[in-house]
């Protein structure tokens, strides 16, 4: 049993607040400046995606799954496609797989650069935040060239990729030029961050998350890897088999480790992109030879940019979706962060929460609270009972 600490006051932040651009609410229970306990309410962006998907034709569903999250749109599209492909045993051509990996890694870099932007903004360092958004433009452009939209490239379709997203030779050349240029600038940027003593004094030793805690709370992705937990689903996925990359694992588990881990991971992504450009196989890009039909409940695990992502669904005999389920990495990551930010200053605690790269739009769904009389209540019930305030 955890001993209940005496808490002086509560500070609640959000959902409209500069530090958390997305709508969620942080309640910090503090003594003076020190956080004793933390609670994050994340259901403000709930829009019932899993219910919406019920009864839609599979191909139409891609439009919605892509809009689960705008930062990692490709992850959700690809994973929902993977579910259907695994369930209906659809062969995917090699070239399509390569291009899917390409767009995924491009978006992974863009997502990590958003993380830097957000983390440095929370740190109060505008110059580095802006610099990271400037660097990110390279990848937004590439996404627009490949998919036609900066945010929603919509590359994977069931059986392959969209014909528009095929790589031409000139596009390949553009990509390799841009990433070479980017790598030079990015290396400089990372070196400047690591050499800045003021930033490092804010980051080191704050927000410690031990390996045991990371495993216990299931903090997957970069957060777990920054705590010394070697867990990356990319190593288990057949799409990533042809490529050679390292999984970056750091042992410190503090905010600095979480920043550095992502900084290094970007270099691995660049490595993968180079390999794709070099040995992209020729051949068809889409396999149209399938019909939607009855499919049993299938699960697909995937390494999203923030951790482990699960999509699962079944199809009925007309090919309509039944029982779609999404489990995104952020809820578990946030639970770990609630733990990690205890014992720090308030300003540091918010940095810790930002350093797990929260992306809440995807993770909010049904919220059920268990009361003593073992009655379940949804948020709506609670609001009816207690009122808004």
């Amino acid at each position: 049993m955890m001993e209940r600490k005496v808490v002086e006051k509560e500070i609640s932040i959000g959902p409209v607040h500069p530090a958390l651009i997305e709508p969620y609410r942080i309640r910090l229970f503090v003594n003076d400046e020190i956080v004793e306990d933390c609670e994050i309410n994340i259901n403000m962006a709930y829009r019932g995606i899993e219910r919406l998907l019920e009864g839609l034709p599979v191909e139409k569903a891609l439009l919605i799954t892509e809009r689960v999250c705008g930062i990692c749109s490709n992850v959700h599209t690809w994973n929902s496609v993977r579910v259907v492909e695994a369930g209906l045993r659809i062969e995917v051509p090699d070239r399509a797989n390569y291009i899917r990996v390409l767009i995924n890694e491009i978006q992974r870099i863009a997502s990590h650069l958003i993380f830097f932007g957000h983390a440095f903004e929370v740190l109060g360092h505008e110059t580095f935040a802006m610099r990271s958004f400037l660097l990110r433009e390279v990848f937004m452009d590439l996404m627009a060239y490949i998919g036609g939209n900066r945010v929603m490239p919509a590359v994977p379709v069931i059986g392959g990729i969209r014909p528009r997203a095929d790589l031409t030779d000139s596009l390949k050349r553009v990509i390799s030029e841009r990433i070479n240029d980017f790598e030079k600038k990015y290396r400089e940027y990372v070196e400047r961050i690591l050499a800045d003593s003021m930033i490092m004094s804010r980051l080191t030793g704050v927000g410690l998350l031990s390996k045991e805690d990371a495993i216990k709370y299931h903090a997957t992705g970069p957060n777990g890897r920054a705590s010394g937990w070697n867990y990356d689903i990319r190593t288990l996925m057949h799409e990533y088999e042809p490529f050679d990359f390292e999984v970056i694992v750091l042992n410190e588990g503090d905010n600095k480790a979480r920043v550095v881990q992502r900084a290094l991971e970007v270099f691995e992504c660049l490595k993968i992109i180079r390999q794709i450009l070099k040995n992209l196989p020729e051949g068809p890009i889409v396999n149209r030879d399938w019909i939607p039909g009855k499919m049993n409940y299938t699960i697909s695990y995937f390494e999203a940019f923030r951790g482990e992502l699960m999509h699962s669904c079944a199809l009925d005999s007309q090919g309509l979706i039944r029982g779609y389920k999404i489990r995104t990495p952020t809820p578990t990551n946030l639970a770990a962060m609630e733990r990690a930010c205890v014992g720090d200053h308030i300003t540091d605690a918010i940095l810790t929460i930002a350093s797990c790269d929260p992306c809440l739009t995807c993770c909010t769904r049904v919220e059920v609270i268990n009361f003593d009389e073992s009655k379940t209540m949804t948020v709506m019930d609670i609001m009816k009972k207690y009122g808004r305030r």
Partner: protein
Amino acid sequence: MGLKAIARKNAIHAMLVYTGGCNGCDIEVVNAIFSPRYDIEQYRVLITWNPREADVLIVTGCVTWQMVEPLKKLYSLIPDPKGVVAVGACAINGNVYKNMVGDIGVNEEVFAPVDNIIPVDVKVPGCAPRPEDIIMGAVKAVPKLMEAP
């Protein structure tokens, strides 16, 4: 053009409220603000996080039911004259969340068009709109501010 209109034209404080939806529009707005490539400040739009300081409210996302009240309250706190820019398909018509429903028919979680909740002056379509469009939207709200008494 009096001094009043010139002053209003030359300093516009914009505030971003994000009310659900995916993150796309949100990041693009932040991009328009923070990326030196777009740099909204050179068009005299300054960014603020305080409704008391704001002139233009940039609303993104399909309004989920928990965000309805905060949005209304926020709007009421902005001193007149004020403008509202709805950014993205979500804020304009609810996008897929409202219009592409499966078996349930009507999605009750989403109160989408922002128009239903607060008056909107400028609409920026797109999913997600480009940062250029967002900047243009924010600047388009200016004539209304200038003409206000």
